[in-house]
């Protein structure tokens, strides 16, 4: 056992047992952040705050929600919204955060792509981030089922049908996932478990991994500059704060994080109180009715782009395209063959590729919601093909990129 001396203060007492000074150094005061980064680097903190909001509001909702096909809808719309004090607030916080978290994830992802933050040395950051994205998607989908509204039910039907994998007709697999021939009690109960236990645990683990992945390669910066963190941090500690290229995470960058979080929360609570319905599909306020199909079935906005990659093709081709869209982002660090870690605007053809991808995904998102008729289905098909072509072309575009 270590040698313990009589503590001189509470901090010292804790320090001897928990090494809190060391933790503080590793986590904050000697966690070095490059100085030339902008507010887009605060998206990680916004995500952490939003996840905390989701977790806390979710725990309050969990106290009153009933995972039963006969009571789920009323437990949300009557008990939580009417009977429970401030139940409406927790629900709106949860509902709005669930949607906003994806907006911020997409901004975070595209920031990484724009500045090349996934490249050599930082692959694990990218991969753990993509795993987080996939887990968040499953979390969002399983949560969407729980109020057992009309769109919950039919989205559950459509999405689980995908697992029959077209002509492979794996109907047994679909039934195994649902626990029944159609979404019913078994389906609701297992999605409830996934949403409140298994997936949040996985997310928390992955957040840990995502942070750990940053420790060695450090955060990228606006210029993709390779910084000598040892030398620069020494400069900082020696008192040359202004001359050093790095700063502490706490409280230097943290103060900027908090400023951005402040602005974000204004936007967030504006939505919660004055525009909460932006995130809650009105169709989902009709109770699930297995005998009546809604006029249009579409997923939440953040899944629309990948839904639209599935839709314009015949069943089998669509599934292959869909599978391609799900995994291709993970491979980005290897598909981008360029040696440059630099913002897209300095990388020639890659810059065009970046903006095309962004616009293509917005077009896919729009077409994914619109009814697949006439001009919309044509645009959807072109955009889906465009998505695939862009990714296939990426290695060729970046192969001959000149060193900048």
């Amino acid at each position: 056992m270590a040698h313990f001396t009589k503590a001189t203060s509470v901090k010292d007492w804790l320090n001897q047992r928990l090494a809190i000074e060391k933790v503080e150094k590793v986590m904050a005061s000697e966690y070095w952040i490059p100085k030339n980064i902008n507010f887009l680097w605060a998206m990680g903190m916004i995500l952490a705050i939003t996840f905390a909001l989701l977790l806390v509001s979710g725990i309050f909702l969990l106290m009153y929600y009933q995972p039963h096909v006969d009571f789920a809808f009323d437990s949300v719309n009557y008990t939580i919204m009417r009977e429970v004090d401030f139940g409406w607030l927790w629900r709106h916080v949860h509902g709005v955060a669930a949607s906003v978290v994806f907006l911020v994830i997409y901004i975070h992802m595209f920031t990484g792509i724009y500045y090349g933050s996934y490249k050599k040395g930082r692959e694990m950051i990218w991969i753990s981030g993509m795993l987080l994205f996939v887990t968040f998607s499953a979390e969002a989908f399983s949560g969407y089922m729980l109020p057992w509204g009309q769109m919950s039910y039919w989205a559950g039907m459509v999405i689980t049908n995908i697992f029959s994998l077209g002509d492979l007709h794996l109907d047994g697999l679909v039934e195994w996932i649902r626990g029944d021939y159609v979404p019913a009690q078994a389906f609701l109960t297992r999605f409830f478990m996934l949403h409140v236990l298994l997936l949040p645990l996985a997310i928390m683990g992955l957040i840990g991994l995502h942070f750990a992945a940053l420790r060695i390669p450090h955060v990228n910066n606006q210029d993709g500059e390779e910084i000598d963190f040892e030398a620069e941090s020494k400069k900082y500690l020696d008192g040359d704060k202004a001359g050093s290229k790095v700063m502490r995470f706490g409280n230097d960058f943290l103060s900027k994080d908090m400023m951005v979080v402040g602005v974000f929360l204004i936007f967030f609570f504006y939505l919660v109180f004055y525009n909460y319905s932006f995130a809650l599909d009105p169709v989902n306020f009709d109770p699930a009715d297995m005998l009546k199909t809604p006029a249009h079935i579409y997923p939440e906005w953040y899944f629309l782009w990948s839904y639209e990659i599935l839709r314009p093709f015949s069943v089998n081709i669509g599934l292959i395209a869909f599978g391609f869209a799900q995994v291709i982002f993970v491979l980005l660090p290897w598909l981008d063959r360029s040696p440059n870690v630099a913002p897209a605007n300095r990388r020639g053809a890659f810059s065009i590729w970046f903006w095309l991808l962004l616009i293509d995904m917005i077009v896919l998102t729009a077409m994914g919601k619109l009814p697949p008729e006439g001009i919309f289905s044509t645009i959807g098909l072109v955009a889906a093909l465009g998505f695939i072509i862009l990714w296939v072309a990426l290695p060729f575009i970046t192969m001959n990129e000149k060193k900048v």
Partner: protein
Amino acid sequence: MKNKEPLILVVVVAFTLLTYWLVEPFAHSQMHKHVESEDFAYADLPAITKTGNAANGKELAMGAGGCTGCHSITKEGIPAGMDAVTAAGVYGVNPPDLSDAGVVYDAKFLADLIKNPAHALKVEHKFDAAKGQMHPMVAFYGAGGDIDQEVADMVAYLQSIAVSKDELTPAMAFENACGRCHAMKYENWTQLGEKPEFKFEKESLAYDIQVLEYQESLTKYMGKLPPDLSMYIRSRGEHFLSTFIENPQAHLAGTAMPRVGVTADAAEKVIEHMADAGDTKRDERASVGTNVMWYILIFAIFAFLWKRSVWRELH
């Protein structure tokens, strides 16, 4: 180096708003047709040209007009001829009590309803007299005098006994105009009225059976059981509800839902009642919202000041 952050913010916000606009306003405009309000003018119905006399109207309603053969007027001590469940068995739906009809429904609508029910209710596609499909409400063919005068008298009578516009509560408007076909379980409302508290489960179940029997007749009459309206304020929204109440055919051609002919004021109250059921905390939301926004704004200001003080040494 020039500070690019404002530009970056503009780009992020612009793409976010574009995406929002595409998946919300634009997509919804493509998926649902927009129906403009007709301002509850009922412009397609003939104007009332005569000045009604309430005393004559009362005589007609009780006598030659035949209203009380099917309708109760509880305010005048006239009970219903049969209970609601039996009435629904006979007519498909329980005929409404007329006590407050004069304030809930538009005068022009009432006049046309008395003379030509299927036309006023816009259900001629279901009740075509030529094909022998009679509307359960029997049209009034006149009591021997000037029919327009007689109708005007009856409308005047209904208006004379109804509560004033200010006394009409949202719940009353809803019960009168919607409550015989639509349940609203979040307000404990069944098609038979508010479900009472029962001491014994046996009695509660007996009541439920009555409701089910009523619903069975109603389902036969309407083609399907009209939906529970508890959450309609959120699943449909105010604009849809208002224009749908005004003219269901404009949204859903061929629907069995009749045009109920409410006045603009009554429609507003019906919608308020629906908000009372499905959005009870709207006032609390507004007041809490204001406080939270102030709090967050002050938080953001302090965060900005903190950042400035920390970063002063970094540059």
